[in-house]
């Protein structure tokens, strides 16, 4: 039991980078980017093939980051310069990446078992793994926070918030969008590279459903920890990724679920998290409107009563 919780925390930290990437597109740019399913596997593929060819794991992971950047930039270009609908641009890249990923690996999967990887020095004990990965993820989170407070980062955030406004202040919103989508997929690819090194293999289907898992992490994090500022929002995403893995670990211990039900459960979590706040808001608005109308009516009739 405790072991599976530790395992869940460790996995949550590895996937947290992917969730941070999804946060950039989904929350900051307001752009649901499906490239993620492809670029996650691209990251894994690049890292695995480079490690098996004897390159250093650090270099392999950096190359994975670069691959993700390029994939994201392609989606961004399609969407901004080619005026392709955002969802479609992501889907097109996702499909294109499927073939590209097989090209990269030369076959549908590549094993890095029994090879020195970036994570091998810290794999055991699990406490060490969580500590080191935790620090690494926090560093990435803080770097992202800092970037989002620079002039360029502010322009990126404003692009998703009010593009017309930031254009009138001189930012090229096409460029900021491409930058954001690119950075997002870079982080996703690094996450894929780490998962490949931790699991011992890269697989062509390792990215399937990744966007939904990313969304679930972002939404769960927001629901539990809020999003008052960038600092808190990114922290919530990291913790959301961990909470998601713990929930999954617990759900799988219940005999009710098979591991193949995982994607259904994830989709349900996202659906609930998207629909419940909307219904809540609707009900709240209605009750406020009703109360205020009644109040105003009361004051009006009071005044009339006073006069007569």
């Amino acid at each position, binding site marked *: 039991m405790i072991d599976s919780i530790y395992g869940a925390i460790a996995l949550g930290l590895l996937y947290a980078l992917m969730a941070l990437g999804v946060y950039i597109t989904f929350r900051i740019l307001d752009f649901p980017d499906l490239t993620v399913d492809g670029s996650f596997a691209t990251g894994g593929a690049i890292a695995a093939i480079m490690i098996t060819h004897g390159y250093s794991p650090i270099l392999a992971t950096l190359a994975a980051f670069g691959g993700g950047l390029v994939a994201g930039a392609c989606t961004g270009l399609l969407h901004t310069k080619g005026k392709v609908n955002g969802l479609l641009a992501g889907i097109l890249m996702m499909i294109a990446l499927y073939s590209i990923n097989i090209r990269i690996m030369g076959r549908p999967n590549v094993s890095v078992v029994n090879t020195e990887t970036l994570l091998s020095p810290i794999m055991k004990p699990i406490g060490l793994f969580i500590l080191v990965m935790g620090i690494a993820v926090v560093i990435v989170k803080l770097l992202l926070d800092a970037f989002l407070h620079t002039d360029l980062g502010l322009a990126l*955030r404003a692009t998703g918030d009010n593009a017309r406004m930031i254009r009138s202040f001189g*930012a*090229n919103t096409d460029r900021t969008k491409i930058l954001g989508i690119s950075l997002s997929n870079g982080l996703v690819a690094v996450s894929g590279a780490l998962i490949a090194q931790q699991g011992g293999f890269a697989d062509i289907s390792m990215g399937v459903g990744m966007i939904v898992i990313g969304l679930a992490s972002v939404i769960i994090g927001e629901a539990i920890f809020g999003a008052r500022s960038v600092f808190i929002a990114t922290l919530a995403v990291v913790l959301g990724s961990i909470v998601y893995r713990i929930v999954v670990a617990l759900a799988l211990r219940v005999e009710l679920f098979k591991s193949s039900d995982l994607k259904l459960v994830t989709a349900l979590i996202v659906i609930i998290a998207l629909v419940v706040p909307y219904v809540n808001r609707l009900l709240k608005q209605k009750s406020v409107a009703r109360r205020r109308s009644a109040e105003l009516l009361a004051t009006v009739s009071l005044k009339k009563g006073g006069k007569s």
Partner: protein
Amino acid sequence: MLDLVNVSKLFNPGTPDEKIALMNANLRFKTGDFVTVIGSNGAGKSTLMNIISGVMKPDIGEVRIEGKAIQHVPEYERSRWIGRVFQDPMAGTAPRMTIEENLTMAYKRGKTRGFGWGATSAKRQLFREHLSRLGIGLENRMNAKVGLLSGGERQALSLLMATFTKPAILLLDEHTAALDPARAELITRLTDEIVREMKLTTLMVTHNMEQAIRLGNRLIMMDKGRIILDIPEEKKTNLTVAQLLGEFEQISGNKLSDDRVILG
């Protein structure tokens, strides 16, 4: 300073819905001019603004700033010279970002945005001073998200953001039209103060005849994409709303038709 030379613009050209938005508009603005623009529905006032700011490109004709033709320069690059306040109070600010962050972005108008830290303490001090001059207490709420402000407060902030970097040209697109009378009056007063103090070359579209006469040193009237009247400062000081409406009828042959017009 700012010149429009033979500018024409059609909407839906070559279709049954073809509409003349601007027809051979020629305008010269001197530095420090504060021009008010009035006209009926569809007269081309907003098109004029959009063509100057770069949201639209003219079909033919030139837009010149300091003698340089800029009609092909994209909107985001023109922002170096042009500050703009929109009619919709929601349009000029980013709601999920703080007052301070919004001002930081405005501070970088037209400059390259890099990895420099956004809201430094020096900039914050500057913003606080500017905000306190608005006199509505925003200087004490610099870390509040702009989405929490009222329409009037957001428009005051938009006005500050559009002006405090002293753009060469200020475009005001019916920027008080969506506010209640008290707030509209506040924004009108702030506009007058800021434009005077900073001597900004300003172009203001308005539906409020009285406001159009009271503010600025020049008044332009538009109808069906044409500039039909251009009243200089000497004549403008003694102008009345009745005279203005009379002039319009005489020139265009119609009554000024505008469902939102305020005679003041």
